[in-house]
């Protein structure tokens, strides 16, 4: 039951947080959410604890591989994009 409550509350948070995002950054929003959808990797690492059968670890390695492409690719391309939206005077502070 608590899981369901968490889900409902987070729907509201999601709704309000996303509407605040400026249309200028909608592409970046997509690539950032792409990157964080790699969080499903937790599902893979948790599943290692309940492995019963032989081929399963290999499935999980594949899942980790694709989730990692999402995470690193998504964040890298978001960084490239958002770097371009940075005000000019901040460009040298990293």
């Amino acid at each position, binding site marked *: 039951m608590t*899981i369901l409550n*968490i*889900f409902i509350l*987070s729907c509201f*948070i*999601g709704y309000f*947080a*996303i509407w*605040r*995002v400026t*249309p*200028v*950054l*909608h*592409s*970046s*929003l*997509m*690539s*950032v*959410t*792409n*990157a*964080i*959808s790699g*969080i*499903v*990797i*937790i*599902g*893979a*690492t*948790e*599943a*290692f604890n*309940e*492995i019963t*059968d032989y081929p*399963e*670890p290999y499935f*999980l390695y594949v*899942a*980790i*591989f*694709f*989730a*990692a*492409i*999402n*995470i690193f*690719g*998504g*964040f890298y*391309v978001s*960084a490239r*994009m*958002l770097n*371009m*939206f940075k*005000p000019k005077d901040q460009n040298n502070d990293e």
Partner: protein
Amino acid sequence: MMNNILYPIIFILFISSINALSEPKKAYRGNQLAIFAMALTLIMSFYQINETYLLPAVLALVCGALVGITLAARIKMPNLPQLIALLNGFGGLSAGIIGITESSGPNHPLGLILLIIIIGFITFGGSTAAFLKLATSFTLKNSLVMRLTSAILLFLIAINIYCTNTGTLESILGLALLTSLWGFCFILPIGGADMAIVISLLNAFSGWSTVAVGFSLENALLIIVGTLIGSSGIILTHIMTKAMHRNIYQVIFQPFTAQKEQNYPSNRPFHQGTIRDAAFLLENAHKVIIIPGFGMAAANAQNEIVNMAQILKTKFNVKVKFAIHPVAGRMPGHMNVLLAEADADSNDIYELKDINQEFPTTDVAFVIGANDITNPIAKTKKDSPLYQMPILEVEQAKHILIVKRSLSPGYAQIDNPLFYKDNTLMLLGDAQKITKQIIAEIEND
């Protein structure tokens, strides 16, 4: 124990990172927050892996990281939509595979697992189709065969689910294959410029598959973050469909290309302008509004256009603004990214609702690679599929310059009366070349 402390920190970080995207200035920090949160998540989750599996798991992570970074570093900004489509697909695939392994575990409800597999692999198949369409500009002449195939697949999927009560690996794998194929066949017939909507929709799907995994593992973090992604996808889909005055049903089942009545009259007279004419109009204008569309991305012309705007501003004291339609390009915000890449002044960039009232006082509307989003038919012709779609009211400007590869109709296959107006000059050719020629011309004056 560690989870109890780290989880709240991680989701506060994720929500703040999305919040930071409300302002372009803070947005970069948002990405850094999300990266930090993801780093915490990775450390936490890999820390819990049993030693026997740890090394290969880390190896898989590193390989994925290398592939991801290579892809992201190589992609050119105009091609961004295809990378996003690909990443959406990988997200779904990853969730789907996790669903498959969970199916053998004793303590997960089968219904939930089937849901993970179905959403995950539909996302994967659909994204693959979207990627192919974006990367190869592939179009389907006859969508009926595809529709039929997807109907048959749907039937097979239903049978498969009915027989999967036992949850054997074979039947689960079969389900994965069938749903991937179905997603592929379902997305393939959808029209080119509806891609912005399709990508948003698939983005939502990858989020909801994460939520489904979260429910099966009773993991709050997955549910919260997955919901953020899912809502983002749904809201973007909503914004895009509204900006085209369409709904999801129409996007999927009534591609614009299916319209038969619009036979294109190619012999109507129009005014073809020279580079000299265009340069003259632009130099002597007080106010110019530039309307970019997918054609600008396709010709990779953003640097030239921004350069041209800069010269007009400094040398001829012309007020130059950019007008961005929400569905210009192949993904939400596509044009904004390209203009930012070309270093356009963000104060000059306006959204549809903020600039439309300015067209009557504009001397030159410079339409580059855009078509349907400026078509005045949307306001007048009741039987047109574009009817009531919000457009940029270019027709009210004193002069209109249209840069276009050819006189062919837009993706909607609908004639644009704008082309034949007396105060319209058509510049036919590659957007980048034409803009370069205009720059050369105005620099010499």
